[in-house]
């Protein structure tokens, strides 16, 4: 069996979460490695929440929100963007590969994009291997 990474996807309620829903309704397949956490806005996500995921055993984290200009709370996604940038810098010093964190804008109608993003990101994380070092089942 190939190793399945653990990936947390923070999805904003108004766009990405609905996007994931659309993906489901349209029966687009995406890997079971993704665990969705719904937040009202990506602006709510703090760097510590992302680091917490890594600490608790996530191999990758996605933050998915509304396209710029479409934020339900006007500019929450903009503050998410700057916080993600900060988190990436912290990850770099901590020795966590920056490719393990992805920020992407996905609207409610973009079910296909959601599924595609989940697939692509899973592949990236699969190629990086588990954060905890030891690849399980000898897979990398």
């Amino acid at each position: 069996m190939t190793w399945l990474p653990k990936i947390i996807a923070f999805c904003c309620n108004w766009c990405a979460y609905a996007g994931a829903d659309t993906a489901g309704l349209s029966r687009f397949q995406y890997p079971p490695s993704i665990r969705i956490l719904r937040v009202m806005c990506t602006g709510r996500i703090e760097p510590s929440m992302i680091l917490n995921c890594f600490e608790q055993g996530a191999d990758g984290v996605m933050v998915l929100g509304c396209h710029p200009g479409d934020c339900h709370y006007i500019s929450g996604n903009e503050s998410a963007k700057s916080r993600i940038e900060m988190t990436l810098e912290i990850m770099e010093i901590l020795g966590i590969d920056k490719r393990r964190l992805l920020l992407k804008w996905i609207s409610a109608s973009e079910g296909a994009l959601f599924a595609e993003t989940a697939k692509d990101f899973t592949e990236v994380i699969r190629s990086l291997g588990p954060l905890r070092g030891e690849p399980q089942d000898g897979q990398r």
Partner: protein
Amino acid sequence: MDKDRIEEYGIRQCIDCGKCSWACPVSHRENDFSPRSIVENLLVGDKKLLGREMWDCVTCGTCSALCNSNVKFHEFMRTVRKLSVERASPMITHGDIFNFISLLSSKPYLRPRTLNWLSPDIKVSEDSRALLFVGCTPYLNIIFKNLNIDFLQIPRAAVKLLNAVGIEPRVLESERCCGHDQYWLGNDDLFIQLAGLNLKAIESSGAEEVITFCPECYSTLKFVYPRFFGSLDFEVRNLTAMMGDAVDSGVLSLTEDSSLSTTFHDPCRLAKHSNIIEEPRRVLRAIGRFFEMPRSRHTSVCCGVASWVNCDSWTKRWQLERIEEARATGAGALVTACPKCLAHLSCAQYEKNSCGESRRFDIVDIHVLAASRIFSTE
């Protein structure tokens, strides 16, 4: 709380003089917080500590520095926290980011890369007997971008100063948090994990002395590590103290600037935990006029937030008062020797509504200031 723990910090020696409560910066602001009455209640009334009381203390050590019965109240507070972690939690700042940095720092499967501050104008060496321990300053530089302070200037200045006295220090490629905050939060398990990894890295580097510019790293490595791991194979030295001595003995010459005037904010971990008091003043006197604040040395106040606990409007007011105190001495700049004090004190000024642009006061790090005044004959 069990009896042995009470004895350990000399609580029973309390003679009820009240000096601790007189000096405690928290007692000044909160009428119902007093180290003396906490001691008294525990000894006489067998009262339990309230969760809040235990986190109100900033563990600055002022009470212990002044106590004539050698009661180690701040250490006692730490132990209370350690034994009570399950029962009450502190009010944490910055979404607990610093805790997660410590936690992830403690993972043997991660290799932090903490050398992003090196620059070509400073000399480090791979086989020096002295090692510069950098601590969490590179993280501060990211988290406090909004303050517009280049925190990475501090480690660079540290190397510059060391170069000026003939030391080319080595640096660890991968350094982990020193564990200071975890120790004072009473989180011994994480502290031991971090300290163990750091000790292993230092010992396998073969360095004979570890130099720190951060007073927290200094007091932790110097005094706390041996408490858990026994005596260390290397010396621990504080850079501010080294520079004070080097200025005194003439090994380090700094150019004086008559237009420069400073006052010094004693970081708790430097003055009260480590008793390094005169050395920073020697450095500052060598470069310009020096003014003393009324609350200085052993009765200096804390910058307001220790171990990232309890930052609120009340703390900010405390910090702004400190800045006003510095300004009132007539000095042109408030100097500190701790990167976290620099962050906290600058933060209070950052908010425009409490401190308009014209009311801002210069707050600078002593190493950066001293490095800019290194006398060179070139």
